[in-house]
């Protein structure tokens, strides 16, 4: 049966944008309803960031253990090879997801948010029909926060199904694919491809661009390229995947190489990781007078759409499609609805690739800064000269920290790093940019010895002067 009711705030989508918006709205005393068709947590928690990090961690552990078999590495030898029970690995990964999902549900409940598990379809801007397992209900909301997220992009000619999988399936495989062909050497393809390589798959990348991770500069991506080379991962660049033939055992992918020649490659699985598209279909967006900008919903710096009291956040409103951006926007929108004066004005949105080794980029790279006409100075410091890195075997992967600053006033406009464990350095990088730090601020902050973060301090010292250990 269909019931009608009203609420102050309706949040559609329970991902890191939507659930954060709902929690904050609830905390601020607003009558809030969250509609989510799946489990709360969204792509990030259920089939993205979190499960992939769990899989990457397990894969790295397995690879490390393999290195000790009979080798006496660090004086530690394993007499027999470690056994991989991928089903158990997946169960462990799911337990992490379950625990976090439970945490989100608990936080929503604590904040007094009503969660409806169902599919929301808008009849008009403020009227939402929700199909649930036990019928339907119609919700009339004063404020609507659209946090519908994004989905994997499908390639024409290479439809998902059978051996052709998306990142979602690549996270739940219970057998290591013998031959994994990954279409797209962006961060998602690389993270998963590298994880499966560590677990024993033979991995080949088919990339349309001229090199891997085209959004980062060559200096940053070189350590990853070296890792791939060292681990016999072939990267076929400037190639266009065209079609796929499937049979019972696997698939054959056809692609055009750099020279335009048609080539084929056999694969037990073909992972299509060519990006994500905003979810703008299937929930009545067309019934709302909301303007779009390209594929995305258009919003202003307060995440307002063109219709009053209809807000949109996260992947739905544009790049970068990152969980932490969505969360920041969600929190802000809830506060604006509660009467606070806010706007979305970050100096930088940090981005991390959990590749081997990891990449962090915050703010402008040297090329981007120059393209904007800035006169910049760059300071760089290698992990090979950092004691802590050597003690963790993290000094040999070619990693470094790089600081980019304006030459005239020494204001830091970007910090990047590549190397093992550098994701954890991203917080300091982002803080430096947000605080408007000068190179001297970073250089004069005492950093713990021994730690990887010393590289940040040394890179700052190197920007206009001289690193101590460089």
């Amino acid at each position: 049966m269909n019931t009608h009711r009203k609420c102050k705030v309706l949040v559609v989508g329970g991902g890191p944008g939507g659930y954060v918006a709902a929690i904050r709205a609830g905390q601020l005393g607003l009558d809030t309803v969250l509609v989510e068709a799946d489990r709360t947590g969204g792509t990030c928690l259920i089939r993205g960031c979190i499960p992939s990090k769990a899989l990457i961690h397990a894969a790295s552990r397995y690879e490390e253990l393999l290195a000790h078999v009979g080798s006496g590495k660090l004086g530690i030898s394993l007499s027999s090879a470690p056994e991989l029970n991928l089903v158990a690995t997946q169960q462990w990964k799911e337990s992490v997801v379950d625990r976090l999902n439970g945490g989100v549900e608990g936080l929503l409940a604590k904040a007094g948010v009503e969660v409806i598990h169902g599919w929301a379809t808008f009849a008009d801007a403020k009227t939402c029909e929700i199909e649930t397992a036990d019928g339907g209900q119609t919700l009339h909301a004063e404020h609507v926060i659209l946090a519908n997220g994004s989905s994997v992009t499908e390639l024409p000619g290479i439809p998902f199904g059978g051996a052709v999988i998306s990142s979602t399936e690549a996270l739940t495989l219970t057998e290591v694919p013998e031959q994994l062909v990954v279409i797209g050497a962006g961060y998602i393809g690389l993270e998963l491809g590298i994880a499966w390589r560590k677990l024993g798959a033979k991995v080949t990348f088919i990339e349309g661009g001229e090199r891997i991770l085209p959004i980062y500069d060559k200096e940053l991506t070189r350590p990853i390229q070296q890792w791939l080379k060292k681990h016999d991962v072939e990267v076929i660049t400037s190639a266009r995947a065209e079609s796929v033939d499937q049979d019972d055992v696997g698939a054959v992918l056809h692609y055009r190489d750099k020279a335009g020649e048609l080539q084929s490659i056999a694969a037990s699985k073909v992972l299509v990781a060519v990006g994500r598209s905003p979810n703008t279909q299937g929930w009545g967006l067309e019934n709302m007078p909301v303007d779009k900008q390209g594929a995305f919903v258009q919003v202003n710096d307060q995440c307002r759409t063109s219709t009053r009291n209809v807000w949109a956040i996260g992947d739905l409103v544009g790049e970068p499609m990152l969980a932490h951006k969505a969360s920041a926007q969600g929190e802000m929108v809830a506060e604006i609805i509660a009467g606070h004066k806010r706007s979305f004005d970050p100096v930088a949105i940090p981005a991390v690739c959990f590749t081997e080794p990891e990449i962090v980029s915050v703010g402008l790279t040297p090329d981007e800064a120059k393209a904007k006409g800035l006169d910049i100075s760059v300071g760089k410091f290698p992990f090979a000269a950092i004691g802590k890195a050597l003690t963790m075997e993290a000094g040999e992967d070619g990693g470094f920290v790089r600081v980019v600053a304006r030459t005239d006033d020494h204001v830091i406009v970007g910090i990047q790093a590549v190397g093992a464990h550098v994701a954890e350095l991203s917080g300091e990088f982002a803080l430096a940019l947000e605080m408007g730090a000068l190179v001297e601020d970073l250089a004069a902050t005492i950093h713990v010895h021994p730690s990887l973060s010393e590289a940040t301090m040394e890179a700052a010292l190197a920007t206009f002067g001289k690193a101590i250990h460089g």
Partner: protein
Amino acid sequence: MGHYSFKLPDLGEGIVESEIVDWHVSVGDRVEEDDLLVDVMTDKATVELSAPVAGTIVRLGCDAGEMFAVGSELILIETAGEGEAVISPSPSAAEAATPKPAPSVPQAAPVQAPEPASHKTTISHVPGRHEILAAPSVRRRARAEDIDLAVVPGTGPAGRISNTDLENFIAAGGMQAALPVSNQSAARSATTEIPLRGLRRVIAQKMVAAKRNIPHYSYVEEIDITALEELRQHLNENRKPSQPKLTLLPFIMQALAKTLPEFPFCNARFDDEREVLTQYDAVHIGIATMTEKGLMVPVVKHSEALDIWQSASELSRLSAAAREGSARVDELSGSTITITSLGAIGGIVTTPVINAPETTIVGINKLQDKPVVYHGEIVVRKMMNLSSSFDHRVVDGYDAALMVQALKRLLENPASIFV
């Protein structure tokens, strides 16, 4: 056979629903493209929506008088062609559906409510755009207190604004004190900040644009309207019950309609981007009208075809509609010349701002009894000043003076208005 789903378009300001005032069609009616379908009320005007396609009305979304949600299906039309299926509303659909938005709505008189600026967020990793250096906590506090950090002096390295800088700025009087000119009385310290919103903001933008783009040339002339006042009194005393009471304005409108054909550049709109002056045969007179929301300019269309009584009724109908907020968009746009009158308040001279893109605005000043030299004697006459402004790019001072003099001749010899 196809079906066309006509959805209620967003009629501006991001409104969520509109009142369906009146249906002009019912189910089963056959409509042609551009036929009038329905009147819809927004918070500023009644808008007529017309059929974007020809066909037969299959279904109406609601009864007249109901509120109806923007984006919902208002009318289902069965069309002859292949099914265009369901066509969702788009800005262009909304435009197409608004009937004859007289010359063009954006140029129209300042009645367009402002769109809440809906710029795309550019989420760029661009610290360079922050010419303002300040920590997130400082930025957030400034936002909450409506302080523009661009005017806050930063004492930190590279001009960084610290929380202390912000506190000092607030203690020193905040934004009000930071403005270059303070009109506050020295002995008083309280301030009232009124954000520029809605019609007021549109008026401000239009005025700035008019003053910035148009080199105004103003010309003031004194008119003896003793004879005109006698005529007006006579006509009012002898009018039929069906005829409206005449004020001075309809006479001036009549005189303008008669004068302007000789001075077509004064009954014109100048597109300065294209550098084209469009002169109109029709005389559509905008009447600057004070309303609760601010200045609005309803337009008496085809004044050249109206007699004095029709002018008067149309004038009173339109100014009432503007004041009540029931004027339609097409009644608030499309003027070719504008009259502004502050005569009732007083004042001997005004310097009216041209209602861009027009070239001419005529201002009426206070009518008063004054001693003047008339036929060699000092006598008391009914005198009134006309203060007019012209776009000097397209109207020379000489020609403007001739126009005002021609108008003066008609007004001082009122019979000539009507022959």
